[in-house]
C-alpha cells in the first residue's frame, strides 16, 4: 500500500480528532484553505471496506463505525440469576390465585411486595398484566404466561399441586424462624445474584427450607 499524501493524512487526522462533524469548508479552513475535496474522496474510498467509514451526512463529514459492525458497540451479555425467595413466592401466589391484584398478593404473603419483584417476574416473561379488577381503584390483576407453564414443565395450571399434596409432602410445615428472619430483612427483595457462572449456588437458606 502506498503512503497517502500529506493532505490526505492531514484531513484524516483532523476528522479523527474533531469532536464535531465538519463540512469540507471547515476542514479546508482548518488546513490553511487547502482543496480538501479530493482528499475526502480518497479517504472515503480507502475506508469503504474497513471497520470504520468516512461518511457525509447533511454536508458534514465524520468517521463512524461500519454499519455491519454496529452490533459491536452495544453488546448484550446474558447473566443468569436465580429468582429470590420473595419473587418466587409472588410468582407462586400469582400461579395459584390468578387473576390476582397486588393487594391480594400482599395479603396472602403477609408482607409488602416491592414493585421490583413484579418487574422481575414480568422481565423473566412469566407474569403479565391482566384486566383491571372492577372494584374501587380498579387495580391491575396479574396472570401467568404460557412461558411460565413451559418453563415449569406444566401442561396447565391444574397441574400445580394442591394444598393437600403440599401438606403430604411436608411443605406446609412451619417455616424455620431463622429463615424467615433472613428473608424479610429488607435485603434484596428482587434477586439473589449468582454471578455470571450460571450455577445455582444453593445457599444455606435454601437447604434449610428443604
Amino acid at each position, binding site marked *: 500500500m502506498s503512503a497517502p499524501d500529506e493532505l490526505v493524512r492531514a484531513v484524516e*487526522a483532523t476528522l*479523527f*480528532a*474533531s*469532536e*464535531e462533524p465538519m463540512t469540507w469548508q471547515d476542514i479546508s479552513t482548518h488546513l490553511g484553505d487547502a482543496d480538501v475535496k479530493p482528499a475526502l474522496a480518497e479517504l472515503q474510498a480507502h475506508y469503504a471496506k474497513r471497520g470504520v467509514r468516512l461518511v457525509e451526512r447533511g454536508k458534514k463529514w*465524520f*468517521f*463512524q*463505525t461500519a454499519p455491519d459492525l454496529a452490533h*459491536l*458497540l*452495544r*453488546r*448484550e*451479555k*446474558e*447473566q*443468569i*440469576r*436465580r*429468582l429470590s*425467595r420473595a*419473587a*418466587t*413466592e409472588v*410468582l*407462586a*401466589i400469582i*400461579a*395459584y390465585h390468578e387473576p390476582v391484584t397486588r393487594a391480594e398478593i400482599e395479603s*396472602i*404473603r*403477609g408482607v409488602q411486595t416491592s414493585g421490583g419483584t413484579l418487574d*422481575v417476574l414480568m*422481565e*423473566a416473561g*412469566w407474569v403479565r398484566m391482566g384486566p383491571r379488577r372492577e372494584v374501587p381503584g380498579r387495580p391491575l390483576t396479574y396472570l401467568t404466561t404460557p412461558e411460565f407453564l413451559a*418453563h*415449569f*414443565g*406444566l401442561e396447565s395450571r391444574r397441574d*400445580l*399441586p394442591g*394444598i393437600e399434596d*403440599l401438606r403430604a*409432602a411436608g*411443605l*406446609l*410445615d*412451619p*417455616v424455620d424462624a431463622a429463615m*424467615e428472619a433472613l428473608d424479610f430483612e429488607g435485603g434484596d427483595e428482587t*434477586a439473589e445474584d*449468582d454471578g455470571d457462572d*450460571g450455577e*445455582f449456588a444453593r445457599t444455606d437458606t435454601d437447604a434449610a*427450607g*428443604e
Partner: protein
Amino acid sequence: MTDMLDGLTLEPFEGEEEEWDGVATGPTPDDALYLELDGWEGPLDLLLDLARRQKVDLRNISILALVEQYLDYIDRAGALRLELAADYLVMAAWLAYLKSALLLPKEEQDEPSAEELALRLQLRLQRLAAMRDAAARLMGGDRIGRDVFVRGAPEGLRIDRKHKWKCDHFALVQAYGQVKARTAPAIHMVRERMVMTLDSALSRVSSMLGISVKWMEIRDFLPDHANPQLRKSALASSFVAALELARMGKAEIEQEDIFGPLRLRAMPKAKNAA
C-alpha cells in the same frame, strides 16, 4: 518547551549567562536579587545553576570555585541587608565549613573528609541535573492534547447486561407452601407463670410477723418451694410487702451492712402507740 512551565524557564541562565553578574546588574538591584532568588528552588538549585556556569561537565566542576561563588552571592545579598531564607544561610554556613576543610592539609582533616563531603555534593548536583534534563525531555515528547490527539468523538462501547432468570418447579411449590404455612391462622397460648402476688406476700408476711416479736430474716418468710422462679418472685413480693408493712407502722426493717441480711420484726405495741 519552556512554554509549559508556567513562565519558569528550566535553565534561568540560558542565553544571558555572559552578562550574569548577580545583584550588580539591573537598575533596581534589590528587586533583581529578590527575583533571582525567587527563580531558584532552594540552595541546591542555586548551586546547580552556579555549577553549570563553570561550563564544564558536572563531573569536572571545581567544588572550591562553586563554594566561593555561592558564598560570594550570599555575601552580596548580606551587604544589601536583604533577608535570605534560612536554608540559604544554612547552606552558606555548611559550604564555608567545607571550604576551610578543603583548604586544610589532608592529614589535619576530620572524618568525614572534606573530599568525601565535596564528592557527595557533586553527586547530588549530578542527580538533580539528570532529573532536570529528564524532565525536559519528558515534556518534549509527543504529548496527548498538544502533539497528538485522540479520537474527538468516540461512539463508545457499551455492554448491556441482560438477566436470565432461573427458578424451578420445586422452588415454586415450596415457596407457596411456605407462604401458606407462614400465614396459617395461629392460636396463641400464654403459659402460666409461677409467681407470688403482692397480696399473698402481704398477708403471708403480716400473719407470720404476728407470731413472733423477734427479728427474722426476710428469707425466713419465703415458702419452701423447689421452683427457683417462684422463689425469686416470692422474695421480690415479700420485700415489697415488708416495705409496705413498715410504711403502715406495723413492722421495722433493719440491715446492718450493704447486701447484708435484711431483717424485720413486728413493731412493739408501745412504740406503735407513741
